[in-house]
């Protein structure tokens, strides 16, 4: 039955895909990267302070503050969904983390005796196991994100609600919960482990801002997962043709729930990192960040119709937004222009993508 390979197939009628339709050139992320490089050159001439080490560190840190959440939302966007609750999720996770951390570090609180005791002077609080409180509180924050992600995923994948409406509702629910648990006052990561917490969230590791390092690791993991695992393949298939995915036996419900959980966890982690940098978790933290996050993903080439996107694009989108923000300040342009410019860039990015896909 099996026909010998050499005689079986000739590609006489089928040309190879042209170079500009292949590999990196077929991706919007590449075009946006070029735009970014161009912008960097322009910035270099616009301001002598742009390419200083301090400013570069600043840029790296600032874009890392939305980029991890953008990675998460990119997963959801590739499946053809959307998650509007990321901004609220950041706040809620950060709030749970700092409240648990403060709570466990107060000796009279229930359960706190497991974690802390008073020093001999009767005032200083000492951790029983250094770092344990931080670990538990970060896990609590991520646990809250996990639950919200599961609820999002359940409503969308099992109940069949629209992702837009579900996560719009969740945006409000989670923000409301953040106000409820904190009574609107916000909270502060405190106690004996606070120093570790600040070091790991806003500190500098190997000469780079810690969030930047986390971002790089997560982006690398995401690239491998998307392109070299069955899960990643299913995520793309879901965005390309959901019906086909179902007919070919892909566990559609499970994959959908998984992407919303991943997205919520990324937002939660992002929120915890931001609270370390702010030194607090105010109840209005990260308000409307979901728009920045989605904008960054779209600029980086994630297609809201599903099926296209990746970590490189997500990061480049975030960098572009941050460079514009940073650059406008350095160039002494009224910073209120920033939002207008971001909007223009979103539309331009989508326009370039449309023109390019017509050419194919």
């Amino acid at each position: 039955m099996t026909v010998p390979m050499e005689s079986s197939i000739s590609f006489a009628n089928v040309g190879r895909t042209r170079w500009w339709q292949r590999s990196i050139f077929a991706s919007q992320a590449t075009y946006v990267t070029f735009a970014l490089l161009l912008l960097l050159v322009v910035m270099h001439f616009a301001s002598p302070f742009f390419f200083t080490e301090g400013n570069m560190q600043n840029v790296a840190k600032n874009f890392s503050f939305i980029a991890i959440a953008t990675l998460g939302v990119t997963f959801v966007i590739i499946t053809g969904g959307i998650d509007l609750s990321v901004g609220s999720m950041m706040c809620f996770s950060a709030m749970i983390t700092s409240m648990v951390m403060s709570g466990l570090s107060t000796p009279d609180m229930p359960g706190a005796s497991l974690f802390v005791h008073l020093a001999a002077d009767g005032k200083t609080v000492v951790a029983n196991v250094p770092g344990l409180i931080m670990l538990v509180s970060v896990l609590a924050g991520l646990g809250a994100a996990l639950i919200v992600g599961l609820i999002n995923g359940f409503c969308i994948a099992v109940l069949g609600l629209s992702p837009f409406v579900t996560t719009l509702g969740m945006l409000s629910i989670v923000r409301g919960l953040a106000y409820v648990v904190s009574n609107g006052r916000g909270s502060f990561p405190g106690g004996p482990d606070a120093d570790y917490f600040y070091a790991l969230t806003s500190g500098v590791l190997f000469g780079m801002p810690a969030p930047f390092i986390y971002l790089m690791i997560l982006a690398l993991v995401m690239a491998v997962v998307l392109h070299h695992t069955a899960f990643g393949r299913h995520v793309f298939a879901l965005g390309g043709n959901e019906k086909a995915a179902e007919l070919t036996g892909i566990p559609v419900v499970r994959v959908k729930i998984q992407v919303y959980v991943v997205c919520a966890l990324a937002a939660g982690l992002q929120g915890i990192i931001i609270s370390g940098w702010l030194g607090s978790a105010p109840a209005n933290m990260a308000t409307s960040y979901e728009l920045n996050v989605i904008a960054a993903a779209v600029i980086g080439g994630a297609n809201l119709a599903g099926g296209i996107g990746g970590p490189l694009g997500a990061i480049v989108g975030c960098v572009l937004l941050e460079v514009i923000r940073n650059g406008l300040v350095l160039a002494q342009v009224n910073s209120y222009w920033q939002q207008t410019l971001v909007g223009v860039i979103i539309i331009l990015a989508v326009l370039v993508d449309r023109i390019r896909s017509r050419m194919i």
Partner: protein
Amino acid sequence: MITAVAAGQPVLELTGISKEFGAIRALHGMDMQIFPGEVVGLMGDNGAGKSTLVKIIAGNFAPSRGEIRFEGKTVHFHRPVDAREVGIEVVYQDLALADNLTAAANVFLGRELKRKFGPFYFLDHKAMAARALELFGELRSETRPHHLVKQMSGGQRQAVAIARTRLSNAKLVMMDEPTAAISVRQVEQVLSLIHRLKEQGVAVMLISHRMPDVFAVCDRVVVMRRGEKRADKPIRDTSPEEVTALITGAKEAA
């Protein structure tokens, strides 16, 4: 070559299959047998119940009444995967391809080849591309495994969808209008593929509107009308004229 008589046991046997959607009776008391290595043409006008029947066999939904026996054993399919597990493959009319993935990725969708690396499993891109190329070769289709389906012609898409059924050792392949949207030359290719499936003892059910295709490859034709089976006879005992009459209702049954 296995003949229907020599095979003895039918690969698929339907008894009294009925399906109602609310007040609509889509299928009524459908009996049917398919033997290994047999090509059966399923014909009927729109709304005759062909698609419903295919979907029931493929596990998309359960029949309201009746029994499905596969290789002698009663089976109940809850999902399409269940049907695939016992050896029923379907080539859907809209082909069920993900445009944003490559041909090889589509062929292996849902059953990717993986390599173990420590505790993790990663896609084995090379093995999948090689196997896909081999399958396209068998189908005589000029399709490159790493090209995106988005950029492919109708015939190439068809090849990708059919290549999928060749991955597993399917015992029954159902094709829903495989020749509806492709060129004359590609129709020849699809029909010759059906012949090859037959040679291997695979049972094929061809759902088609194209009379010439059915008469070119099928051993037997089943005609449906208004949810019921109106005819089931060897192709040599019938004619396109009779089948047309049965489909339109000019002739009630044969």
